[in-house]
């Protein structure tokens, strides 16, 4: 087992190195270069050259590449000229909001997927078809549409929930206010995830229900709930863990749209704003961070899978 884990770890480190390299060349290939976008309409050839020298952009590629690694290793992600703050600080003040939203949405999606998937797999004919139709609708509805409709209904018409933001009020007003602010974006973000996950999980469950051991469990008089949660779930959930790891990119992408629609102060919102303002250092750092989170997510899924699979553990 140790060998398998070390292999996974090595794989992840390699992916990380590739990611950092890839992102470096992405910025290097930016047309016009950063100096133009920083100086904007005031750009003169002399000013650009001066700024390039100041930022070290006149050095050869290999040296810039090494400097890039050196800065990353020291936690230096650059300076945002549009927001006048170090990028690391910027990200730091938005990251936890995104992690909170993602965690709530992911937890909701996973719980919903398990319940729906079990129901769908156990009752493939009647209930399963209704759930199946719901999954296709949930998966196809675009985030901005769902978000807007939710705002119109729950914030504008019914006035039950705030239309967006997280505001300073959220933190001072305590947990209840925080939940109220999280509810709509979390639902918006969780909906397509739950639809995709439950569809996949439902197929797993249905395959498990065709196995002999389910019939054997019934022949021993075990209840349907016990069979579902104690026996079927354990076997069907293992492949789900891998898929949950892979859903991190969709969380992030969905997060950009959701956070923009709800004006939620998270990384997605920051990414959207940085893109509009051509704030390259911030943009680069966020892309890098998303890549790192994805790699870590996959690694975590692999580790959990290894621990869950009794066959891998004991052999």
């Amino acid at each position: 087992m140790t060998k398998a884990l070390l292999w996974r770890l090595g794989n992840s480190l390699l992916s990380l190195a590739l990611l950092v390299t890839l992102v470096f060349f992405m910025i290097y290939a930016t047309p016009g270069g950063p100096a133009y976008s920083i100086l904007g309409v005031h750009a003169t050839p002399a000013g650009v050259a001066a700024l390039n020298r100041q930022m070290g952009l006149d050095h050869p590629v290999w040296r810039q590449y090494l400097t890039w690694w050196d800065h990353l290793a020291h936690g230096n992600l650059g300076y945002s000229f549009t927001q006048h703050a170090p990028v690391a600080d910027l990200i730091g003040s938005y990251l936890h909001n995104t992690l909170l939203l993602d965690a709530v949405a992911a937890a909701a999606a996973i719980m919903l997927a398990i319940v729906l998937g079990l129901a769908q797999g156990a009752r493939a004919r009647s209930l399963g078809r209704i759930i199946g139709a719901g999954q296709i609708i949930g998966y196809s509805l675009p985030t901005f549409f769902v978000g807007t409709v939710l705002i119109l209904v729950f914030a504008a018409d019914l006035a039950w929930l705030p239309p967006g933001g997280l505001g300073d009020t959220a933190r001072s007003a305590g947990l209840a206010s925080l939940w109220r602010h999280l509810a709509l974006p979390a639902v918006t973000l969780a909906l397509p995830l739950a639809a995709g996950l439950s569809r996949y999980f439902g197929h797993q469950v249905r395959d498990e229900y065709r196995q002999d051991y389910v019939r054997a469990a019934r022949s021993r008089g075990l209840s349907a709930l016990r069979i579902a949660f104690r026996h079927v779930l354990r076997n069907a959930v293992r492949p789900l863990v891998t898929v949950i790891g892979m859903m991190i990119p969709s969380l992030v992408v969905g997060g950009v749209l959701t956070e923009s629609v709800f004006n939620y102060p998270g990384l997605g919102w920051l990414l959207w704003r940085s893109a509009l303002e051509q704030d390259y250092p911030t943009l680069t750092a966020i892309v890098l961070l998303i890549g790192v989170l994805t790699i870590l997510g996959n690694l975590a899924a692999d580790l959990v899978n290894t621990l869950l699979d009794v066959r891998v553990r004991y052999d």
Partner: protein
Amino acid sequence: MTTDGLTLAVSGLTLGLTRDRRARPLVEDLSFGVARGEMLAFVGESGSGKSLTAAAIFGLLPAGVQRIAGSIRVNGSELTTLSERRLRAWRGRDMGLIFQNPLTALSPSVGVQAQIAETYRVHKGGTRDAARARARALLAEVGLKALATGGDSYPHQLSGGMRQRVMIALAAACDPALIVADEPTTALDVLIQAQILDLLARLQRERGLAVVFITHDLRLAARYADRILVLYAGRAVEEGDAAQFFTAPRHPYSRALRDAIPTIPATGGRLTEIPGQPPEPRALPAGCRFAPRCPNVGDDCRRTEPAMTFDGTRFACLHPCAKMS
């Protein structure tokens, strides 16, 4: 047939397709009983209705098959009128089912001690520790002392024979009155086969279990069972005492089955076979179902379906074989 004192009494059991009501039944008018401490062997080819009958006893017929008529009584209580919820209490507590392939029939991600303890606790209650102790005692009783001590083991860690012993311990967990073993040794090699059946016979003797042993192997049936019931295309064709049955089967199908058993030393040449194939449920012949393949066939066989008669054994044949063959 009197059902008094029988652990399992099935009468007039008829099973058919739910969708296609015009199709002939898959199992028709099947009646049999098993007493305490007795082993009845069901013998027949694939598709003769053996496993369907077992499933019907547990109320676990596959989708698309339903019970059309007949009664199933365990310890004198009618099971066919019970709701699914009530019947669930009977499964595992009063009757245990042993499957053909113990690897697929054991829950793969739950330890074997935990599986036995779970079944016990669902029906008998008590503390987790008591159930676990009971599971360990059962594992020791079925000859798995190594699994009875210390930590739990998963099914994939065990050999085929060990798994089937676990399956037997599971079926016997709540001290049921009846055990149905559906081809319990088909997935095992010959030496292990004998060990498993010896174990089953011992439990039957020691606990006074009623056992239904489903097999396609007439030799195993003759060696272990007290009585043998032969099924052909969904109907009982002969039922009788195992020893007598083996020496003097009356139904031509039973005799053909017996004669198809290879002997040592081999007499050379071809193995004996039964010509033709069993009929499809949708294309059953009129009259006796075995008539197209029967050496004793007469014109009357193609017109009337023979009823069960008693002469040494119970059999359904118009032209039975001689009493001593």
